[in-house]
């Protein structure tokens, strides 16, 4: 589960749909053939690869066996990787949630000039749309051996590669996920409860930790789990920063396959990764996110102005947010600088040679990446609408299973999905490696889940009376769907498509296994440059990718915003 751009929309809203209003609509859309196609594609692109993976791990010489897994666990290095992955995940979850909470508290609950809040909120989103290497590259330039800051401090000898750098980079990359989830919770906490506590004689700080914090607890739990899963799945950061000092499962699985061609070992390590990732996801999805929603429903009457937590706490948060934002800016500035000078840290003469290289040698990667994103975005968006609509309208055990299957690739770490795809599509009858199809399907079935979530969330918000009104005015089920329902969920679909787009531009963990000479990606070019120690080229590639993503996702966000603004406020009482 990679960074969630639209985390608030991912919360599962309360209340069931209405079975009664559904039958005619679904039936008249001719849902069965569509459902057939969806299931077929899910079986091929979700269940079958996973099945192949499990088969390789647990099936040997025609018998069910745990031996390959046991063999893997005999190797101390693998056990260490498992332990490291879990430890790193927990550490990132705690630090990222803490930072996310501070940022959320600052933007939602504290008095500060609007522009400052805006700048800080925007900066926080930057890591979410950046390719996974960004913070890793710049951190290695800042804190790596001979890194800028270490030099400044006069301790250039110290080696931070391993846990410390990986942890720092992942915290910086993923705290925005916590920020999004927690600011949604804080926004909807009714300040009148805090007012009540204040008027009962509590100091602001006491109110904060006896009222505000406890009411945010489900949100915090949610954020911890999200970040744990994100860190567990992260492949790019440890690949660059952890090295052999701090082996983790995704990189071990990758090396097992690309280095040793040991598919069974790679599959086994993926399985070890799959178990905690799926557990964290299920816990988050089916338990915590439901609970957290309870705290944020309910209309409040007149809202009183928000209260802070007292001068000391607020001062601390304010300083922290400023410093961290400045650090994020520094990291991006360094990438930009590194891409524009001869050798960063050695020869700071301005040059465009790295960009020339990118546009010459990387032209194909740019084109391929854009083509893939351009296919993935609309197709995934369309599937998200259809599946979201079906699962929302038609509550049944079969559709709960459909929903679960759609979430599977999303919940699993990219490394697991990538290895499963390699195993499944390397040979006849479904020989897809080397092609475009395998990349496109990997992205669609991995990231359309976010689109489904946001479509379902927005369907929940459509007042059912609106569709009933349409029917009683004489519109058939089909007409109601196309004239009323669809236009009303379009903002959600666009948000889902934006998510698909960003991730099909920036993801690497699954597709690193699937690129070929025919089809390559910008992210894999960054990785190549990194492994060749060509930091400047890696930086130039990153800058190009960030700019591309920033512009296109900005355009999409703008469309969503203008379209939703027109719908705002109407249709309710």
């Amino acid at each position, binding site marked *: 589960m990679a960074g969630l751009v639209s985390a608030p929309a991912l919360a599962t809203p309360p209340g069931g749909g209405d079975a*009664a209003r559904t039958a005619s609509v679904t039936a008249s859309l001719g849902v069965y053939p569509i459902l057939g196609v969806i299931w077929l594609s899910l079986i091929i692109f979700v269940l079958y690869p996973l099945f192949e993976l499990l088969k390789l791990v647990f099936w040997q010489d025609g018998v069910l066996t745990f031996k390959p897994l046991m063999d893997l666990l005999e190797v101390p290095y693998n056990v260490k990787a498992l332990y490291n992955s879990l430890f790193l995940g927990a550490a990132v979850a705690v630090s990222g949630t803490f930072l996310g909470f501070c940022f959320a508290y600052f933007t939602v609950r504290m008095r500060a000039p609007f522009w400052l809040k805006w700048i800080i909120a925007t900066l926080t989103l930057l890591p979410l749309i950046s390719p996974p290497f960004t913070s890793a590259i710049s951190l290695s330039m800042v804190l790596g051996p001979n890194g800028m800051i270490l030099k400044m401090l006069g301790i250039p000898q110290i080696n931070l590669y391993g846990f410390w750098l990986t942890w720092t980079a992942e915290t910086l990359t993923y705290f925005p996920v916590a920020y999004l989830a927690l600011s949604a919770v804080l926004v909807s906490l009714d300040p009148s409860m805090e007012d009540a506590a204040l008027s009962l004689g509590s100091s602001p700080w006491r109110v904060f930790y006896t009222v505000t914090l406890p009411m945010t607890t489900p949100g915090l739990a949610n954020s911890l789990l999200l970040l744990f899963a994100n860190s567990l799945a992260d492949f790019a950061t440890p690949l660059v920063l952890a090295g052999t000092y701090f082996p983790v499962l995704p990189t071990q699985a990758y090396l097992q396959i690309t280095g040793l061609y040991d598919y069974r070992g790679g599959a086994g390590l993926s399985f070890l990764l799959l178990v905690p990732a799926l557990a964290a996801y299920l816990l988050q999805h089916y338990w915590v996110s439901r609970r957290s929603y309870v705290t944020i429903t309910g209309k409040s009457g007149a809202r009183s102005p928000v209260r802070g937590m007292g001068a000391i706490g607020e001062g601390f948060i304010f300083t922290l947010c400023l410093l961290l934002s400045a650090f994020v800016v520094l990291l991006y500035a360094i990438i930009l600088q590194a891409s524009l000078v001869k050798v960063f840290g050695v020869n700071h003469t301005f040059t465009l040679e790295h960009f020339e290289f990118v546009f010459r040698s990387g032209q194909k990667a740019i084109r391929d990446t854009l083509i893939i994103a351009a296919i993935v975005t609309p197709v995934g968006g369309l599937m998200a609408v259809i599946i979201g609509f079906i699962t929302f309208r038609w509550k049944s055990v079969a559709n709960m299973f459909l929903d679960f299957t759609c979430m599977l690739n999303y919940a699993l770490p990219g490394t697991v999905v990538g290895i499963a795809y390699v195993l499944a599509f390397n040979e006849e009858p479904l020989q897809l490696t080397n092609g475009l199809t395998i990349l496109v399907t990997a992205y669609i079935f991995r990231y359309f889940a976010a689109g489904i979530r946001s479509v379902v969330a927005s369907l929940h918000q459509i007042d059912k009376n*609106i569709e009933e*009104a349409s*029917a*009683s005015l*004489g519109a058939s089920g089909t*007409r109601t769907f196309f004239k009323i329902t669809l236009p009303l969920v379009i903002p959600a679909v666009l948000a889902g498509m934006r998510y698909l787009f960003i991730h099909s531009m920036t993801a690497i963990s699954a597709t690193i296994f699937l690129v070929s000479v025919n089809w390559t990606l910008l992210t894999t070019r960054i990785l190549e440059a990194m492994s060749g120690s060509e930091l400047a080229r890696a930086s130039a590639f990153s800058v190009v990718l960030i700019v591309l993503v920033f512009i296109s996702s900005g355009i999409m966000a703008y469309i969503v915003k203008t379209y939703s603004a027109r719908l705002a406020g*109407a*249709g309710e*009482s």
Partner: protein
Amino acid sequence: MPAELRIENLCKTFTKGREVVNAVRDVNLTVAEGELVTFLGPSGCGKTTILRMVAGFETPSGGTIHVGDEDITTLPVHSRGIGFVFQNYALFPHMSIFENVAYGLKARGEAEDAIGRGVAEALELVGLAGVERRFPNQLSGGEQQRVALARVLVLRPKLLLMDEPLSNLDAKLRLHMRTEIRRIQQHLGITCLYVTHDQKEALTMSDRIMVLSKGHVEQIGTPFELYAEPQTLFVADFIGQANVLPATIGEPAGGMAVTRLGPATLSLRCIAGSGTPAAGPASVVLRPENIRPVAAGEGKLPARVLHRFFVGDHMDYELTIDDMKLPKPLFASVPYEPGLALFEPGNTVGLDFAEKAAIVLFQTPGG
């Protein structure tokens, strides 16, 4: 074209897991062409459910619904030609007012110019000409409500259903809209079912009222009938205020019965249909405005004053009758007039009422 509505033995059962809710039980109702019938009853008594079954949003568990000669019980919603006005208006937020009102005509496939004319006419009718190009979120609540009405009326529905259409408006606007709705309904001669919580609204705008309780019909009648001759204690208490006194009656004859009411024996009017007409325990209903305290020893019953409230245009008393074990105090409301005699709390007084104002129900509270 307006048409008659006939609801026969209508039932609706909801099952929520193991819990079974009988939301509507065996409801029968005939609404004549052009008539406005209001559903009145406490929250959860099934008003909305009946309306939604007539509209086709819910499928009845039993019974039939006819409009004119046509059985519409299982007809799909969009083929019914029945207008529904929602409590929350349910305007389409992504469409302009024009598109909202034109929606049904377009679904019907009418020609462009007919649609234009229809929309203009409908908006004119609800007093909203000129807002065609705005969007719902640019209108006030009252205006949105009128658009919702226009959107339905433009289709000239056979039947108009309204579920608490005014409950989101402020008191003054509600008053205005209720005369407005009644005017339009009578002007078009539309058959109409109307749900409200507001008793005044129901009494002033209905031809007839159907009082419901726990899913079944308590009484159907004109507002005047319900007030003057409630057939059940529930109706007596629900429409206006009622003092209920336990009594024992002799064999009723010719609509009258000899009634023992505490120490008094009177000959009172009995309400037919309020239970089995037989000698035995019964109840006497007295409206607060029909009873008044008088000097001790006078009147029909001895009583004692508990409280007195001056409300301006009238004087309210809470009274009790010591040897009758009343479940709650009696309430008397005496219109103000110069020189009105006052009684202090604690005073022993007489309780007076006209015999024709007291009505006997063959029912006892709780039984």
